[in-house]
């Protein structure tokens, strides 16, 4: 596969790993005093485990898994609201596969499907719109989920629906933006991070400038990285070299996809359809100001929150999550998944307590599935 295979070349990977080892030694980092790099994006977490990169890099380098999995940061009550919409008899509820198994307070979308809700998995919001075209007597709702990578796709889908006057399509908007939680993490005095591996696909939309505050205000480096193993390793090396050279800058390893200024058409579509919410709740992180998007008044007809009276605009009272487990600490990198008392015992991919165990990008599921840290279950 072009642009994929050449970035998975094992020979080049070995060279990169040798250079990483050498640079970690140069820094003098050790297992007990490691260089701590946060990969923000869940796709990076997934790739690190899928290719076993955590086992190939030296012990003086530690990956901290960040809050960049939109499924994992979704609060339980938003899942409950999905279920509420999905259970309505007139609704065809469409979603990306990722969100199907995420537990709400009472049930997941998969559970509601087994109870008779018409929940369908789609690959693209355009496919949900097509379902609306084909089923004019049903209400088709799409579960809009994701960071800036995915936001343009739902914005353009709403614009398409509006231009065709498709009235039975709406979006349950849970889009979030990547920089507000980063600021939150950086302002946390307990967070000890030496740099960030920046989310490549978010950046192809927003460009590299929105990260500048990280270097300017907090003196931390960030390298926007691609998703193939060589991309990740090269980005790690770039971060380490900044450290050696005493720099803290925003660099772009993924220039083949990410233009510095982002994608103007995508940004325009987002701007046209969405506006920031005053506040949005993140699982494990709580409410974060201006971190979520909602549909503008002009497109209210396509807003499932308004259409079905759920969520932030709803007349019903808003109950925040009560978390009995350590998802928040894991999400912010303060706790390794296997340290959580529920990990692999009360909380497994089969019976997840937290969303980090559901999504294959969640740090807990990644550790459970790929890394050799699972507690032995007595036989």
């Amino acid at each position, binding site marked *: *596969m072009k642009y994929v295979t*050449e970035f998975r070349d094992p020979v080049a990977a070995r060279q990169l790993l*040798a*250079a990483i080892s050498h640079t970690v030694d140069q820094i003098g980092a050790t297992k007990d005093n490691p260089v701590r790099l946060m990969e923000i994006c869940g796709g990076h977490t997934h790739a690190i485990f899928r290719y076993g990169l955590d086992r190939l890099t030296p012990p003086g380098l530690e990956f901290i898994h960040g809050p960049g999995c939109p499924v994992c940061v979704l609060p339980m009550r938003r899942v409950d609201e999905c279920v509420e919409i999905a259970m309505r008899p007139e609704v065809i509820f469409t979603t990306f596969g990722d969100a199907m198994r995420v537990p709400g307070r009472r049930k997941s979308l998969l559970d509601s499907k087994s109870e008779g809700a018409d929940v369908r998995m789609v690959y693209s919001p355009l496919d949900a719109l097509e379902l609306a075209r084909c089923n004019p007597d049903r209400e088709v709702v799409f579960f809009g989920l994701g960071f800036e*990578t995915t936001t343009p*796709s739902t914005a353009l889908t709403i614009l398409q629906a509006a231009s065709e006057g498709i009235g039975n399509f709406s979006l349950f908007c849970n889009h979030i933006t990547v920089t507000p939680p980063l600021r939150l993490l950086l302002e946390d005095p307990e967070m000890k991070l030496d740099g960030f591996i920046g*989310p490549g*696909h978010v950046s*192809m939309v927003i460009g590299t400038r929105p990260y500048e505050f990280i270097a300017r205000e907090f003196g931390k480096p960030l390298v926007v990285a691609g998703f193939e193993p060589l991309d990740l390793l090269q980005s790690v090396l770039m971060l380490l070299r900044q450290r050696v050279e005493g720099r803290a800058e925003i660099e772009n390893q993924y220039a083949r*996809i990410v233009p510095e200024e982002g994608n103007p058409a995508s940004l325009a579509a987002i701007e046209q359809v969405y506006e920031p919410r005053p506040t949005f709740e993140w699982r494990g992180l709580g409410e974060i100001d201006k971190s979520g998007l909602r549909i503008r008044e002009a497109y209210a007809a396509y807003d499932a929150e308004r259409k079905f009276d759920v969520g932030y605009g709803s007349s019903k009272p808003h109950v925040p999550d009560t978390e009995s487990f350590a998802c928040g600490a894991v999400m912010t990198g303060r706790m390794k998944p296997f340290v959580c008392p529920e990990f692999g015992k009360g909380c497994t991919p089969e019976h997840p307590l937290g969303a980090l165990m559901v999504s294959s990008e969640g740090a807990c599921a990644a550790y459970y599935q790929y890394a050799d840290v699972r507690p032995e279950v007595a036989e």
Partner: protein
Amino acid sequence: MCLGIPGQIVEITDSERKLATVDISGVRRVVNVACVTTNRSLDDLIGRWALIHVGFAMSLIDEAEAALTLKALHELDEVSGELETITRTEAMMRTGAETGQGPVQ
């Protein structure tokens, strides 16, 4: 977050709705190309590679930048060849210090 995969645009299927067919390792799918048509005619897209995410071409792949990244990776071969020599020499010097012998020249 954000699974994306390179695909090659092979055909414009609906110019009004800005839809095109992409080929991803032999698998084809119609995607929306609205995000990559700024200052460009739709026909110019044919043959170009784009990053595909949830049925949308999100960014055109810059072949020159891809080549530069790969070049940097391959230059590393030489650098890390040197690094290996340095590391080995250092290791030998340490061994030498422990055993009281000088490094082998």
